[in-house]
């Protein structure tokens, strides 16, 4: 069964801006799913529609086999959301906040689980202070605890590590991995693409409200990600029509220091030699050269640049 099946989801605001355009996406149950996109891509709009803080214009969503928009109460009990913006209730302590959040979701507060959340999120020492006394990072961790306190089956993390230091971020991800290993589906948006690449087994990239790609991370990296030959000439290279024609097989891209050629791969080798020879025949020998494989960030930049009509 899939945790989420999103079909043709669209959001057009009153001012006419379409924030999400006919997005169709499947999040397998038990997956660690990265939803990536630049600022304003529509990620938070999508999440907010799942969380019922934004109304969809059209489309359907199924959560664990139940229709989200017509069976909200059942679905809401199974979703935990960490919002992007820090929110806190200045009247209460973190312990009171978690008890209230449990209750609002229809659960009797489970003190053992609340204590474990405080422990794992390093809030134990602060759990009886007023939330006004917490730092920004602590408040963000409290939001994570609030999303988990009713033991949801789908956890949505909207940039949960912004403002959290490296060590705590590592521990948070370790905790999320444990939850994921227990079968909880995690949908993550983050600007730390290295984290997404390391943590997630599924990935979708969204830009300007449109879904660009969605697939397993390994498949994405093997099918889309490619390696490039970087040739350094120590100065900008002008690509003439003749050069472009001669190098067409290598998708040439000029930059301030030289040129970059995309390498093709085949069993047991690559087109490195052909690319290098072609570049030398066009521009002469470079002062330096190297091969670099694309990581998720390169793929992300390349795909989102194509969408906006630019070049990576």
């Amino acid at each position: 069964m899939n945790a989420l099946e999103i079909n043709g989801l669209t959001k057009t605001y009153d001012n006419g801006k379409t924030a999400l355009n006919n997005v169709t996406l499947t999040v397998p149950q038990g997956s660690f799913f990265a939803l990536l996109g630049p600022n304003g891509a529509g990620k938070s709009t999508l999440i907010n529609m799942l969380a019922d803080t934004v109304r969809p214009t059209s489309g359907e969503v199924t959560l664990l086999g139940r229709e989200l928009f017509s069976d909200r109460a059942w679905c809401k009990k199974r979703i935990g959301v960490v919002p992007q913006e820090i929110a806190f209730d200045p009247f209460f302590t973190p312990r009171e906040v978690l008890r209230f959040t449990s209750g609002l979701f229809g659960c009797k507060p489970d003190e053992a689980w609340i204590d474990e959340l405080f422990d794992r999120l390093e809030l134990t020492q602060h759990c009886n202070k007023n939330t006004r006394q917490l730092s920004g990072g602590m408040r963000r961790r409290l939001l994570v605890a609030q999303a988990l306190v009713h033991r949801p089956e789908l956890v949505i993390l909207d940039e949960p590590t912004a403002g959290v230091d490296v060590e705590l971020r590592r521990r948070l991800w370790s905790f999320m991995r444990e939850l994921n290993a227990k079968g909880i589906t995690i949908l993550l948006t983050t600007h730390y693409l290295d984290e997404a690449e390391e943590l997630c087994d599924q990935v979708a990239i969204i830009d300007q409200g449109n879904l660009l790609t969605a697939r397993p991370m390994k498949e994405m990296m093997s099918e889309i990600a490619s390696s490039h030959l970087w040739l350094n000439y120590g100065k900008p290279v002008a690509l003439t029509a003749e050069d472009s024609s001669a190098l067409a097989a290598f998708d040439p891209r000029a930059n301030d220091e030289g040129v970059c050629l995309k390498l093709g791969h085949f069993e047991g080798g690559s087109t490195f030699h052909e690319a290098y020879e072609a570049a030398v025949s066009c521009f002469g020998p470079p002062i330096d050269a190297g091969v670099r494989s694309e990581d998720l960030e390169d793929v992300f930049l390349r795909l989102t640049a194509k969408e906006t009509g630019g070049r990576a």
Partner: protein
Amino acid sequence: MRPINPRGTWTLFLREIRRFLKVKMQTIFTPALTAMLYLVIFRYAMGDRHVPGLEVDYFTFLVPGLAMMAMMQNAFANTSSSMIMGKVMGMHIYLLMAPLSAVEVVFAFLAAAVVRALVVATVFLAVLLPFVDITLLHLGIILLYGISASIIMGGLGLIAGMWAKDFDNVAMVTNFVILPLTFLSGVFYSVKQLPEIWQQINYANPFFYLTDGFRYGFLGIGDTDPFASISIVIGSVVVTVLCCWYLWYSGWRMKE
């Protein structure tokens, strides 16, 4: 059939109660102090002067009206401040994300507003009772009018909080709508003292019936027949609650 969430409703009700109990200086001690100030100012400034047309001294006439005014203002403040605080601090999303229906949310908010209003009225009257000759003459009428006023004002506070974008918006509604309507609801005067045109304007103010009926419960006197006004009061309660339910249900100014 939509599953109900009694624990969630109870939790929201308790949270709203706990919220006002956390600021006791505002919610408990301030009404007590205000009562003492009214005692000093009105009891001794007005002396034994009687209200024209009603066989009661002015201070005794004032006390139930002042208690009602405090109830109405506190019921309004409870819901409006909670809503706007939630919006400003971003906490309102937890209400939207929780599996609570519009009926459950409205019920919890209004019930908490009623509790705060009753607490305030109790404190206020407890301070003044030794100095004034009033009794719970018609307890049913007192509760009917007191609770109805709290529901109406709690509902208006909820709507104002949903509408407002910041604290200034709420202050504007409080100062330019709620305060004039409560001051002009017959708290400080008998409508019989007013010129004809102002009497007619008073009869169009629903808060007037609330104050007058509440006073009748204590003193057995008033400008209107409280039993005849029950339909106006109940009608106002129903309209307010339905408006709250519909607005929350539709996500008015809460969901984009």
